[in-house]
């Protein structure tokens, strides 16, 4: 891919949710881009519109009847003009998503092997059942699930939280998408497991050249993983740029407050210039 044309570029994106009193603007003119294989962090508090951006990129705002505006260009295609079936073909294949709560993300009455296998079944119809099962086994091993041959027939409730998130990641990366969107992927996990899952996502994305958009409220996570960061507040991008620049030298008052709110950084060197209060 030519360096000049990014994998994904978002221009002046708006997301409006209908309500009784009219449309509510959750995302208001957000622009950013991400090149192939890179990692971008989208940071903000809850309600900042960061998750709405993630859902808009997946074309998952249909259910809430949200109205999208602006442009989303992915692999040279204008996503907002795609038909339903074109979206369906992209989702899970070229763009994939990992969600916050893996327990809720997995269907409780379906074996995890079947849930991963669905990705192959609907995007690679030529694959036989046996080939799909073999591919699922391989994926489970790749995401670090021990005893995959037994686990493949487990139900979600039989796995630990970390293992469930690994299963979700396995399904997401199954077809080597060029973009993976992770919406607070570690928030619901124990601290010790968080690091493992982040590490796993980074490694897998690097291995298969998948670009990663990490949506998080957690600046530490983002600064560990991402090269670039977009800081959102009230549906607007308040700051964007390389992680080091933004976190070391925050220009916007909101970024400074976010930084200050981090545990363990109350009087650190990073928040010089932050307003006292």
């Amino acid at each position, binding site marked *: 891919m030519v360096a000049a044309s990014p994998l994904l570029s978002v221009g002046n994106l708006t997301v409006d949710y209908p309500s009784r009193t009219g449309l509510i603007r959750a995302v208001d003119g957000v622009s950013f881009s991400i090149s192939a294989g890179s990692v971008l962090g989208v940071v903000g508090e809850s309600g900042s519109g960061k998750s709405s951006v993630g859902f808009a990129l997946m074309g998952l705002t249909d259910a809430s009847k949200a109205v999208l505006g602006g442009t989303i260009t992915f692999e040279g295609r204008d996503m907002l003009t795609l038909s339903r079936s074109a979206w369906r073909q992209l989702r*899970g294949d070229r763009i994939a998503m990992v969600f916050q709560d893996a327990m809720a*993300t997995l269907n409780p009455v379906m074996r995890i092997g079947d849930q991963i296998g*669905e990705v192959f079944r609907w995007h690679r119809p030529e694959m036989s059942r046996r080939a799909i099962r073999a591919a699922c086994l391989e994926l489970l091993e790749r995401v670090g699930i021990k005893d995959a041959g037994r686990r493949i027939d487990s139900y979600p409730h039989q796995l630990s939280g970390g293992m469930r998130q690994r299963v979700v990641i396995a399904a997401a990366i199954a077809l080597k998408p060029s973009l993976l969107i992770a919406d607070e992927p570690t928030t619901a996990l124990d601290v010790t497991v968080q690091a493992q899952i982040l590490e796993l996502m980074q490694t897998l994305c690097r291995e298969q050249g998948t670009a990663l958009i990490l949506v998080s409220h957690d600046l530490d996570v983002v600064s560990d993983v991402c090269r670039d960061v977009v800081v959102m507040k009230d549906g607007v991008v308040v700051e964007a740029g390389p992680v080091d620049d933004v976190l070391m030298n925050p220009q916007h008052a909101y970024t400074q407050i976010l930084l200050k709110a981090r545990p363990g950084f109350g009087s650190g060197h990073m928040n010089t210039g932050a307003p006292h209060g």
Partner: protein
Amino acid sequence: MLKLLVSRFFYACVIILGVVLVVSSLVKLVPGDPVDVIAAGNPGMSVADMDRLRERMGLTRSIPEQFASYLGHAVQGDMGTSIRQGVPVTKLIAERLPATAELAFWALVLAFIFAIPLGIATALKRGSWLDYTGTFIAVLGVSTPGFLLAVLMILWFSIELRWLPASGYRGSALLAVGKAVVEGKFSVFWNAFRYFILPAISLAFVLIAVNARVIRSAMLEVLQQDFITFATAKGVPRLRIVLRHALRNALLPVVTLAGLQMGALLSGTVVIETVFAWPGIGRLAVDSIHVRDYPIIQAVVLVSAVLFIVLNLTVDILYRFIDPRVRDD
């Protein structure tokens, strides 16, 4: 699994014991006994004759004594002899139960054939004209008495159009299914089944209304779950998501409902059985109450209780197959 069965069997025995106790006490509390009824039909009977009859029927013994003797016989499969007909009660019930059970079966099948698509459609199209039509049907279904619907249908389909029989029962349609499939004799099935249609619809109408509502709300809840979003994010087609991911989860609470409805249908279709002259257990019970035929009344209640318990147990066992979370508990 075995542990569950054993403990459930124990509970079932306790419940049945309680049911028998309550029913036999209630029957005794009602003024008048079978001898009074017999005497009313035979003006020549003297008071001495009546007392002798009471003695012979065991009605002079104390209630605990009668209870113990009844239980002792019942566990051996002897539920007594009908006072009026002089026939073993077990035989009477065995004659009547299949007709009721099969009517209940067809009513429930009918209820779900209509309720499942209706529930799914109204959930998917929430707030549309379809949803409002569904609500209308539900209100209509819940508020229309079965006997009224039954009479209206008889007037229209039997008397006016002459399409379906107005009443009666011509043997099992389920057993005729085999014949129809194997020997290609569809007419054999139809000749039995057409008697089921009107009573089954009369029973099913309210169930369609209730079940469609329950399925609708269960679907709405499930469709909001994250795993539905995840399935969409995987690129799974919408129809497949609705049927495989959503419906499977939404039907879990409905299984319990179906068990309870089957129980209710098995024991209490008195009105519809009366309207359609259906030789079922409900009519047997009512007829027996009129003539104070104690053994039959007790047996009908006992059989209903046992059926309820068996159905509940079946639902519990079924849950272990359809919900893996229950299986591991």
